């Protein structure tokens, strides 16, 4: 017991029980790191192998013969819809969907958060509560009426339909982020500007927006990952020409005809994962903050 006390109490001691427990600690951590990294490693390794090597060999071995053909096939040859176009057009669909959806929902979320914290009106809490609850509904409850309304609006099966859906169902979260952030923003500054005669939008542009950098990054990352990774809405509302990459990938992997080209599947999966992985690598700090404030209120 005393040895364990020493572990924490005296960080600099080099007694042997301590280094033993440290070694154990690092071993366990490294084993976990391998567990988390292994699937990614296997995907990468097997996406640069010829199919024959996958069928015969083991998934952990490095390729005997390196090839980029699976990537090239996944990108512009694989049969997904009627034509063998590869994932390329669907990747483009996802970009055409994600950019406006994220931009619109972030701008609206910022304005909503601004109103809900600096221009309080009776019932603001109920309005916010209703928006917050909307973040957590299982989307199955809105699938049928949403399909109907997209049809009625004439945007069923189009990218516009998906943009609308992602904006509407993303509003709750974007509002939540900005609302919690602006809650801590000094209201006196807003009041002082009002006394000076600054208009509603001028206060927003000149006073709040310039200091909103961090929360904008968090919100954009959160929305980007959610919209990019969405499958349910894409599968329900997209139609053959507007399929996002997740739906196209699933069709590629689960198509029952022909030989299963596992290496192409892996390359495709990595292509679909690349944008969010890059965001995660570049802005990991903000990614975590986004996850956390989406989960536990800021």
């Amino acid at each position, binding site marked *: 017991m005393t040895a364990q006390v020493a572990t924490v*109490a005296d960080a600099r001691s080099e007694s042997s029980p301590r280094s033993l427990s440290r070694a154990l600690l690092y071993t366990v951590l490294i084993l976990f*790191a391998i567990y988390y990294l292994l699937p990614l490693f296997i995907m990468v390794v097997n996406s640069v192998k010829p199919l024959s090597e996958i069928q015969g060999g083991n998934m952990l071995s490095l390729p005997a013969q390196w090839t980029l053909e699976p990537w090239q096939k996944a990108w512009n040859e694989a049969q997904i819809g009627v034509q063998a176009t590869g994932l390329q057009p669907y990747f483009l669909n996802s970009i055409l969907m994600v950019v406006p959806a994220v931009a619109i929902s972030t701008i609206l979320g910022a304005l*909503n958060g601004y109103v809900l914290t600096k221009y309080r009106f009776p019932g603001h*809490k109920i309005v916010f509560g209703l*928006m917050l609850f909307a973040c957590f509904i299982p989307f199955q409850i809105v699938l049928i009426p949403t399909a109907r309304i997209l049809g009625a609006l004439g945007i069923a099966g189009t990218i516009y339909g998906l943009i609308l859906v992602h904006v509407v169902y993303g509003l709750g979260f974007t509002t939540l982020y900005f609302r919690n952030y602006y809650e801590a923003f000094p209201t006196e500054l807003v009041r002082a500007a009002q006394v000076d005669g600054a208009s509603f939008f001028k206060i927003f542009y000149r006073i709040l927006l310039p200091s909103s950098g961090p929360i904008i990054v968090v919100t954009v990352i959160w929305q980007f990952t959610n919209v990019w990774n969405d499958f349910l809405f894409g599968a329900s509302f997209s139609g053959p020409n507007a399929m996002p990459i997740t739906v196209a990938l699933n069709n590629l992997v689960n198509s029952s005809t022909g030989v299963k080209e596992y290496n192409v599947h892996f390359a495709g999966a990595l292509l679909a994962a690349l944008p969010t992985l890059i965001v995660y690598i570049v802005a990991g700090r903000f990614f975590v903050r986004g996850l956390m404030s989406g989960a*536990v209120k800021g």
Partner: protein
Amino acid sequence: MRGLEDWLPRLVLAPSFAALLVFVYGFILFTIYLSTTSSTLLPVFDFIGFGAYSRLFAIPNWTVALKNLAIFGSLYIILCSVMGLFLAILIDQKIRAEGLLRPIFLYPMALSFIVTGTAWKWFLDPGIGLEQTMHALGWTSFTFNWIKDSQMAIYTIVIAAVWQSSGFIMAMFLAGLRGIDSEIMKAAQIDGASTVQTYRRIVIPQLRPAFLSAFVVLAHLAIKSFDLIIAMTNGGPGRATEMPSTFMYSYTFTRNQMNIGAASAVIMLMMISSIIVPYLYTELRGEKK
């Protein structure tokens, strides 16, 4: 002009609020109403009562879906919490490589379930993945065919889902741990408590809010889970990995029993609400100033 300035804030909020009223609350009512009609392929608006609910609960597939959700949900919540807490405590031991390890544990959360499902479906496939690899390495008696076994397939979903989410739960617990006053821990250790005792008696009890948040997040993810099942097993083999979400989808869109599908969606909403509403209520009340 002054009048407009006064109303402007509310006018700015109005479109978002209206959209939510229609797309969330209006649509919830619409789906509830559909569940009381005889809608099959297309919605019809003839109120025929709540018979769809008794029919729903008489469908064996729905019972299977609920049972699977219970198995998946409880294992997913427990395993993610245990692993998350364990990893958070390990990381909290002032280790040198924290900046390297934390992102490794967390990156799966950035991937879509379709990508994760594609990968795990393949590793767990006995013909090509883990089993074959073990055979190639010389362990020819090794078998691991859970994903093809209707008794075990649901557990393969658990394996993949835990891989995806446990790192995030670790981050939640780590944030909780970092919020605990380290003086209390030092004091306990000076009094002769071991590291294990300190965590069990002093630190973990203080993590109650983190446990609650983790539970809410995981339970909510479990009830919603859809993509991972579609990508890994598509509800199979047979209906062995059917979940309420996949049940709802197939009854609504492929089996043309829209009223049953709507009823199952209402049950899903009720499950999530019973967890989220009390949580949000206490959170919103708590911040009264």
